[in-house]
């Protein structure tokens, strides 16, 4: 019974990682860049929800929608002013710019909201679910997280595979030049990808802060790195891979915290990643690309 509750917690944390990892992997697939600022968009989204609920007294659901819209705009602005000028430059240059954007967001948050940690009040009002005569208690946050993540994942899969715009995204990620020749607006598609990724980051931020209620300008950094790891774990660029990688990573983290060591949980997560990459160098569901001479 204990194991089952750890497992459920792991799936819950993992689905948050999966939502963040989706943002990483979609942007990577389309723009071939590691968007290091993604974790900080999560932080901005959580702050906006925090301010909306605690200082302005807006109902949680409205606050979340406002935060999603704001993060979407933020994602588009970042793409337009920082990444778009560097399209066609070396990937290292784009990476350093992304790090610059990450510093920028963290320090802006520091200026606006201060460095003292805020305690985030959970947006979830559902009572915990008691199963098996109260031996297995599933908190409301866990239920909401798992349900929301599942809905988002299914929605995203349908969007990418069934709609015209989604197919355009797949086409751009496969071959930018050919997609342009087929009449796809590449710039628009890339901006849209950033917009979706950032909106998902806002949702992930709320779910994360409801479960782990401390909010600081650096809150986004560690989940960002973990989600990035999850995206690579599942095979970066692959949407089902990001989901699988995220959930597995969450389960591994919670189980190693519970049964091995709290301090070493992160080390174990990263060690598993290295082992997986040694066996499958392009991740669990990544495509193997053969180099041509």
């Amino acid at each position, binding site marked *: 019974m204990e194991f089952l509750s750890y497992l459920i917690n792991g799936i819950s944390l993992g689905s948050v990682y999966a939502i963040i990892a989706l943002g990483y992997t979609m942007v*990577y697939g389309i723009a071939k860049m*590691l968007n290091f600022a993604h974790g900080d968009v999560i932080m901005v989204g959580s702050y906006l929800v925090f301010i909306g609920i605690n200082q302005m007294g807006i109902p949680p659901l409205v606050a979340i929608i406002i935060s999603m819209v704001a993060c979407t705009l933020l994602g588009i602005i970042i793409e337009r002013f*920082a990444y778009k*000028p*560097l*399209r*066609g*430059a*070396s*990937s*290292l*240059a784009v*990476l*350093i*710019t992304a*790090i*610059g*954007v990450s*510093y*920028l967001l*963290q*320090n*802006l948050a*520091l*200026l606006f909201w201060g460095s003292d940690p805020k305690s985030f009040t959970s947006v979830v009002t559902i009572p915990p679910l008691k199963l098996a005569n109260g031996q297995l208690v599933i908190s409301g946050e866990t239920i909401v997280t798992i349900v929301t993540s599942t809905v988002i994942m299914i929605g995203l899969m349908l969007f990418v595979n069934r709609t015209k715009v989604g197919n355009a995204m797949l086409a751009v990620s496969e071959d930018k030049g050919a997609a342009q020749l087929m009449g796809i607006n590449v710039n628009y598609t890339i901006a849209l990808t950033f917009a979706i990724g950032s909106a998902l980051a806002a949702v992930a931020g709320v779910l994360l802060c409801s479960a782990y209620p401390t909010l600081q300008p650096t809150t986004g950094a560690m989940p960002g*790195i973990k989600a*990035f*790891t999850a995206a*690579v774990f599942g095979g*970066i660029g692959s949407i089902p891979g990001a989901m699988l990688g995220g959930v597995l990573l969450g389960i591994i983290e919670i189980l190693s915290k519970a049964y091995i*060591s709290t*301090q*070493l949980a*992160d*080390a174990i997560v*990263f*060690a598993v*990643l*290295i082992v997986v*990459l*040694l066996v499958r*160098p*392009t*991740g669990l569901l990544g495509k193997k690309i053969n*180099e041509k*001479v």
Partner: protein
Amino acid sequence: MNAIKNLKPSTCNNLINYGMVLVFYIVVQILVNAGVLNNSMQGMLVPICTYVVLAVSLNLTVGILGELSLGHAGFMSVGAFSGAIFWMISGSQMSPVVGFTLAIMIGGIFAGIFGALIGIPVLRLRGDYLAIVTLAFGEIIKNLLNAIYVGWDSNGFHFSMKDVSALGLDESGEVIVNGAIGITGMPKASTFTAGTILVIITLFVILNLITSRAGRAIMSIRDNRIAAEATGINITKYKLMAFIISASFAGMAGVLYALNFSTLAAKKFDYNTSILVLVFVVLGGIGNIRGSIIAATVLYVLPELLRELQDYRMLIYAVVLIAMMIFNQSPQVLAWRSNFVSKISRSGIAARFIKQKRQSEEV
């Protein structure tokens, strides 16, 4: 005079690098003796040397080998801890020069061993996958060092991952590494002179490596791996060589950094430190060793000079970083810049200047 003329261009270039470091050293010494540099400025001298060594060694991996590494701080902390443990148990009883040199060497050797360990996955992975493995490695090292307890008594070393009492030390024993608190009460040993010597040694080894046969092999792997393999270059050997050398210098820099303070904790060497060094390398120019030296010095001092601006300084740093990347790397901006230069050179003064230069060259 003839001897200078007969030098190879690469040797000249290297001599300029050494000269630059020496001039910086002499100027700083004069300023210190004249009392111009205050205490906080003097406190920055050893960290500057540390970051120069880190940036130059990371440039070997990123610029010369062409593989992105996000875990340089991991090697630095391995070196720092192994060097500092040695310094705590025996180094400080020896004469300072010998003890310090041995500590630096031990730090370098241990970091080199870890470089070889991480070098093995490097051989299988490429690009962003490699970047994430180095990042993961750095985090693993940080977590392990945060959780480890090391003690020393008459029976030798004791290790534990639990707590101090699990070490089982006898009465002569002392705790050296105390988990997340790290090492405390260390006698300081690093000086600016020692730091400068380490910088010179690093430059000597890495600059000579780059211009040697091995260095050309490493660069050929960067430029075209398949062609390099087809010419019979042993890719495994040269990649590992670059990785191990880079890691061991990072370890030595770690020892220099650790022995500059009386305490040492693993959390100092997190992923932000790796990123900071990478920023030095990229802004100094990838593959350009002199650029790394200048960038590490200037960018380390800059935030301290901007201290009056307080909270705004890191903000300015971030904006400058983004602006520099766009100005130096964006295809459109580069096209605009070359347009601008050719426009200027076609008009007036510059055109005359170029004409004169051409004429003098013809003569």
